[in-house]
């Protein structure tokens, strides 16, 4: 068990590599209750959230989800989030565990002082289990009382699982097909046990980190933070800055015009060694960047990583050297994602 965002979390149940393979080949489950669940509702909810979030959620159809970022006025990334539209006047925002307070204070700072928008943090009353992998549909179907086909990718539906009504979303953080379900805290243990009885393998934070890295998904606090803007992080396609009411809009439009001085790249180790968060990246002589994430990839049987490098070192195949405890180990820039599932 390790401390993570204010929670005690298991790094692994049986082993990181076995758990990673379970999600790639069959089905794994993750207790992701540590992630926040914040409901924003009211007649002004959509308009309010669109000022905060990097895309116009008023355009989001009911029952759909959208990934994006929440930026401060300087364009720095406070958090990355998924927003679900639950009903015409109700949204749910998912902050990372460690960013719940930062998101809460940012939302409250801009909350209109009429009663058009209300914020309800339901994180403590509900749990969240991610059911991920090619067999996730089959496993969850055995416990669902409705047809899971109704939950398409990036959609959310309320349905009964194990006889209990809960939100079921087709989202995840692994690069596989999968679901995230939100049972109330009093039934979650039963749901967890039933998932295991139907073939799911419990997975910890270690496997979650390897899976998201293979899928080229960033981890806030590691790969981006408030000193990084979404263009440097390569998140351009999740940002619609051309909206007058969007709070960091003006700043982000200016940033978009400038070539970023540093950019996030993926890299694959050529020499032997594993890059870790904070290791220097050089061109062989001069320091040109820093590693933000790194691991072995059991799926690709290579060591991979993410990091920020100066402009001029971002194109595919560029030679980099990762300084691993005093030694320069060769790596090369690789297109993201490292792993893309076949559909």
């Amino acid at each position, binding site marked *: 068990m390790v401390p993570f965002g204010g929670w005690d979390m298991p*790094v692994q149940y049986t*082993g*990181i590599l076995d758990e990673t393979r379970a999600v790639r080949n069959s089905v794994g489950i993750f207790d992701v209750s540590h992630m926040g669940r914040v409901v924003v509702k009211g007649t002004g909810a959509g308009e309010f959230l669109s000022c905060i979030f990097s895309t116009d959620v008023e355009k989001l159809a009911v029952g759909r989800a959208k990934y994006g970022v929440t930026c401060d006025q300087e364009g720095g990334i406070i958090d990355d989030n998924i927003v679900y539209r639950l009903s015409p006047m109700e949204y749910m925002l998912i902050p990372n565990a460690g960013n719940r307070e930062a998101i809460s204070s940012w939302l409250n700072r801009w909350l209109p002082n009429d009663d058009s928008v209300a914020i309800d943090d339901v994180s403590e009353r509900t749990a969240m289990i991610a059911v991920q992998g090619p067999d996730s549909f089959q496993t969850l179907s055995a416990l669902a009382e409705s047809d899971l086909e109704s939950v398409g990718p990036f959609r959310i539906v309320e349905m009964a699982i194990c006889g209990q009504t809960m939100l079921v979303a087709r989202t995840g953080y692994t690069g596989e097909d999968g679901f995230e379900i939100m049972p109330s805290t009093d039934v979650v243990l039963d749901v967890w046990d039933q998932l295991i009885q139907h073939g799911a393998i419990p997975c910890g934070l*270690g496997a979650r980190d390897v899976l998201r890295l293979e899928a080229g998904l960033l981890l806030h606090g590691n790969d981006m933070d408030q000193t990084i803007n979404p263009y440097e992080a390569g998140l351009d396609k999740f940002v619609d800055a051309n909206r007058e009411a969007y709070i960091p809009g003006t700043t982000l439009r200016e940033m978009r015009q400038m070539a970023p001085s540093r950019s996030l790249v993926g890299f694959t180790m050529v020499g032997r*060694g*594993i890059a870790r968060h904070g290791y220097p990246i050089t061109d062989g002589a001069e320091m040109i960047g820093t590693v933000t994430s790194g691991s*072995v990839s059991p799926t690709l049987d290579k060591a991979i990583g993410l990091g920020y490098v100066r402009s001029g070192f971002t194109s595919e195949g560029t030679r980099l050297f990762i300084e691993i*405890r005093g030694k320069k180990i060769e790596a090369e820039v690789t297109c993201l994602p490292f792993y893309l599932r076949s559909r």
Partner: protein
Amino acid sequence: MSYPADIKYTKEHEWVRVESDTEVVIGITTYAADELGDVVFVELPEPGAKVVSQEQFGEIESVKAVSELYSPVTGTVIQRNEELSDAPEIVNDSAYEQGWMIKVEVADTSSLDELMSAEEYEQFLES
């Protein structure tokens, strides 16, 4: 978890087996291997290299983290386990047998008397 009685243990979770009057084998304990989790990389000194008691002789890396390996003895490396370079997971599967790391030539084995027995190591882990 039971620890073999025919080997000696260190506080840094290495083990030493005496092969002859001047030759010992060194590895890490099952406790250390379990704490590290899946071992993915082991870096060991080449034959001929000197190792010094309580000083670093190599590195072991798991998916989770990297750790230093400390030598329980002073001497010269005569052989290293080349299999670990392609199959480091052997350390998890067989810490005391196939997962050995280096064979070291020592002046004498008297310094091993200061190391822990299996029973003492178990007590050390519990404390």
